[in-house]
């Protein structure tokens, strides 16, 4: 923003318009109408009941957290110009509609829009970027109280965007925390998206994006990413997504992507993969999940390397008899082999698919007999002489100790 102001000031003497209740300038739209491009509109604390439309390059700054109230009928802020910055507002109660997706802050066909340090509460959609480029959404808090999918909107929603940055936001209680459709070359960092009705993160056709250091937890259905290639997901946390159709991460038709250094904790299914090809999953930690990886027959040429599987009920299940994916150098806490030459790699291959996991795929309530002695015997017998499990799905070089990224010995 500093650069913006500098740029502005070098061309014209930029003015600051102060809006405050009870003064001559008590409406934000009036100030915008009088402002020249690259001026600043400073809004003092108070409640403003208007549908603000920013139609020229402006810095719109709230001081003392002014409230923009949509009164469940309007869209509090619409941005229809390039070079706009919006900060310091509290945006509440946008209208909701079935025909138009009203949002707390909506950006139309713009470039260089900066939205930061705003509080959004009880909006239908939170921040909505439509057909925009080079925008920055950072440090906002979004809160909604959706109960069913049909009547709530997404937190941060982007449609047909390129090169946008979504950083340090907190989203809670929306339908999907972060939703992307046709969004490319973007970065999503350090956000937290929790307790959303449906997905914490949901994207489709969004190629070449990077997701780093985000947290997705307690979402109705976890995270779903689909029909996308060249995604980078690193250092994210996927936790506590629990339910019959909840996934830490649901990967559908994902190609040439990298998913590494993530933590998956206490999800019903940590990763569910369908139609994924040529992706790498490395150095992830799977802990206390019901199913760590459920990989469907339609996945091929994926590489699972240096992952740690600890205290999951089932590590891997598949519906395929032959495995077209590579598992190597992972640590499996259920591995029972030995390491005579002491190189840290088990001498017998590990078969991560357990018989009982296969059985309970077909008969879910068989789960009730998990950890029973008879089942344990069956498991051991199957491990020794595999007959039902796909024995081509095996880790030929299982690690004896959990992989420690800091001291990476096995490359």
């Amino acid at each position, binding site marked *: 923003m500093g650069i913006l102001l500098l740029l502005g000031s070098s061309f014209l003497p930029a003015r600051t318009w102060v809006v405050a209740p009870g003064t001559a300038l008590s409406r934000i739209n009036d100030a915008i109408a009088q402002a020249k491009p690259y001026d600043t509109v400073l809004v003092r604390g108070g409640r403003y009941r208007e549908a603000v439309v920013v139609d020229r390059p402006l810095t719109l700054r709230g001081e003392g957290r002014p409230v923009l109230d949509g009164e469940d009928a309007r869209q509090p802020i619409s941005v229809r110009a390039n070079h706009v910055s919006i900060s310091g507002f509290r945006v509440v109660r946008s209208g909701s509609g079935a025909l138009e997706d009203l949002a707390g802050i909506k950006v139309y066909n713009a470039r260089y829009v900066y939205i930061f340090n705003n509080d959004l509460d009880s909006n239908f959609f939170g921040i909505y970027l439509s057909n925009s480029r080079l925008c920055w959404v950072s440090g906002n808090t979004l809160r909604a109280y959706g109960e069913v999918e049909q009547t709530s909107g997404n937190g941060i929603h982007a449609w047909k965007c390129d090169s946008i940055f979504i950083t340090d936001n907190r989203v809670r209680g929306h339908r999907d925390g972060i939703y992307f459709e046709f969004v490319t070359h973007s970065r999503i960092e350090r956000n937290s998206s929790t307790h959303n009705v449906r997905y914490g993160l949901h994207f489709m056709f969004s190629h070449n994006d990077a997701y780093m250091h985000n947290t997705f937890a307690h979402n109705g259905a976890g995270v779903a990413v689909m029909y996308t290639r060249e995604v980078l997901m690193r250092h994210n946390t996927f936790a506590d997504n*629990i*339910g*019959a159709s*909840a996934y830490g991460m649901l990967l559908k038709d994902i190609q040439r992507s990298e998913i590494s250094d993530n933590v998956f904790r*206490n*999800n*019903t*299914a940590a990763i569910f993969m369908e139609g994924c090809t040529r992706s790498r999953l490395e150095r992830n930690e799977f*802990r*206390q*999940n*019901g*199913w760590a990886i459920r990989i469907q027959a339609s996945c091929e040429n994926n590489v699972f390397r240096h992952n740690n599987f*600890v*205290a999951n*009920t*089932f590590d891997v299940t598949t519906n395929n008899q032959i495995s077209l994916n590579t598992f190597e150098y992972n640590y499996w*806490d259920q591995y029972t082999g030995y390491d005579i030459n002491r190189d840290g790699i088990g001498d017998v291959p590990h078969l991560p698919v357990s018989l009982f996991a296969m059985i*309970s795929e*077909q*008969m*879910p*309530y*068989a*789960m*009730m*007999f*998990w*950890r*029973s*002695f*008879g*089942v*344990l015997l069956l498991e051991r017998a199957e491990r020794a002489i595999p007959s039902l499990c796909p024995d081509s799905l095996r880790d030929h070089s299982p690690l004896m100790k*959990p992989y420690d990224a800091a001291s990476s010995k096995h490359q």
Partner: protein
Amino acid sequence: MLKIARYAIYDILRNRFVLAYGLFWVLVSMSFFNLESDPLKGMASLLNILLMALPLMSIVFSTIHVYNSYEFMELMLAQPVRRSALFMGQYLGVAVSLCAAFGLGMGVPVLLYDGSPRGLLLVGCGLALTLVFVSLAFLAAVLTRDKARGIGLALLIWFFCAILYDGLVLMGMFAFSDYPLERVIIALAFLNPVDLARIAMLLQLDSAALMGYTGALFHHFFGSALGIGLAVLVLAVWVAWPLLWALRVFQRKDL
């Protein structure tokens, strides 16, 4: 009755089995918690051992104890002592000493290494199973006068509860896999104390997996006050009915 229980405890302590038994649990739990990097994983392995070994050891030990104290009981019955007091005293003595050995042997390491409600539940399940299997042992021991046959019967009971039952139910499940069996399975779980203990722990250890598919129903049922209350009640019934039956037999028995 309490006096007889006290004598029974002295008697049991003298042959040192109970000490070794307590020590066994200390060793097992310590080694599992040390071997497994994750306390949760240690707990899971411990549960496997517990569900196998605890019923076996408590039922065999108690049966042998009853046979060994027949002479003592005959002697006592020559005195003005009621049969029910003598019998219940013996039960109390065995149950208290085994529970104490197990409770200390496993309780202390679990508290030290884990200390969560999960751990307490594991110990609680173990204590309940001890009471149930001591009770079953007394039944086995009064049903026949021959020691070898009595121990055989005890082993049979153990084998059925710990291994066979699950196998049979699993087979039945395969056979009827086209039908919705959730409620039937809940009912069947109540018919076997070992299963009841196992499922109680399962809900703690594998809750994430259980929430998938139909698991939610089990979670709902066993997590509710009704489910927990019912489970405790059924365990109490499992302690009571073999014991009362055994008492009836014992009172009419020609020693």
